[in-house]
């Protein structure tokens, strides 16, 4: 089983979960996802996901100006984002439950 493929399916949920806890910029989100155990997350995938969630209205964004370097773009969650997060969380819980059931049955045999 390819972890990269698994991550892709749940990346929206994972990113929303990270942002819901605290605003963050792209690489910060990547780092926090990896720290949480999702080692196989791709940098560009995270950036793209952030952008897509923003376009879908699930995230807010703001730029933090820098005096000596390039500007940094932060993302934060909004009401729509929390709704998406809750919905997807339910979907995920149901999915995991189904998988757990399958696997425990398989393990019992």
């Amino acid at each position, binding site marked *: 089983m390819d972890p990269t493929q698994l991550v892709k399916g749940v990346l929206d949920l994972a990113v929303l979960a990270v942002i819901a806890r605290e605003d963050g910029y*792209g*690489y910060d989100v990547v780092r926090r996802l990896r720290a949480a155990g999702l080692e196989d997350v791709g940098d*560009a995938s995270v950036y793209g996901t952030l*952008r897509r969630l923003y376009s879908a209205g699930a995230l807010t964004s703001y*730029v933090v100006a820098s005096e000596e370097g390039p500007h940094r773009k932060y993302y934060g969650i909004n009401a729509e984002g929390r709704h998406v997060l809750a919905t997807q969380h339910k979907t995920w819980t149901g999915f995991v439950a189904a998988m757990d059931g399958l696997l425990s049955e398989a393990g019992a045999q």
Partner: protein
Amino acid sequence: MSESTTVMGTQATPARVRSYVAQVRAELADLPAEEVEEITLGMEADLAELAAESGADLRIRLGTPQAYAAELRAAAGLPSRASRDQAGLGRWAREHAGAVRDAAAGTGAQLLSGAPWLRELRGAWWVARGLAAGAYLALVLSWFPATAKVIIVGLAIGASVMLGLRTASGRLRWWPVALLNVTLAVVALVLGLRALTTERTAAPEVATISKVPAEGLYNGGALVGNLYAYDAQGRRIESVRLFDQRGHQVVINGTEAEESVGSYGDSTTTTTFYDENGEPRTVDSFPAAWIGPAWGPILGWTPPVSIIPATPSPTDSSPTAPSPANSTPTAPTSDDQTNGGSASSTSAPTSASNSKTSRASSGTPSRSSSSGTDTSTDAAPTSTSTK
């Protein structure tokens, strides 16, 4: 980039990060400008942080900018470039260049593994490439002195070897060098083809040159400078006038004879006849008198006073008999500009030194007796009349 700038959000950007982001932007160039701006805003800061953290090459950590951009598009739900790119040519070229490079690298690796000694030939190839480039430069700069050309070729060889060393060490990108190589190959091909075609066209030129002096009188391919006539008994005729089958009197124009001969570069056959004033004159009565020794050796042959009589021909006992058709070349006095076609009247006795009996002996020229000038019958005019 100073180490103390790892404060959140404020970081100077190394050039390699800027370059990477620029390439990602280029990959997104088909998208609306504000979309590209939005999606790449903050990217430099993030990647600079990443680079400072990991220390590794961005390409190792993130993949190529192309792959990065593709992943970005996919995750952001943006159309892939292949489907968006209207022109598509740049992408196509890039992809195919990559394929060509990969194929070349694969073939090269295969060749090298099969014949490791090929690697040793790289130096020779570099020298050959420099030689080709230098030779081409020297050709273009044709007005340069030879020493300068030698220096140019030497410099080109040096530059080629340096280029080869740099490419081999991976300090140069492959495609400019490949472009140079292909250009040189094409130039060499074009020059080679041109050399071939000019060689081919040069041959007919020589042929036409050899046809230029065709105005003179020829015998066996050689220009006739003078004529010596003998009768059937082998006695030399002191003065004779000759006519061809069209009734045109055979003349040798001094000037033309000289020019024609001169174009051959054959100095021994220079046959210029001059009058008393030193002007070139047209000879219409043979043998022409020379200024100088009257019967000097010409081309190693001194015309004897008499030769062996011709074997009498049974069918033609009377060579002087006028043939029925001899009325055509009627007037020997008609200033017929014939062989030479140039100026000066022919009938007038322009050469006072000519013998007096000339007119009388050639009063009725037989058409048959002046058969073709190039039938090299060195025997006496046995009147090769048609039977």
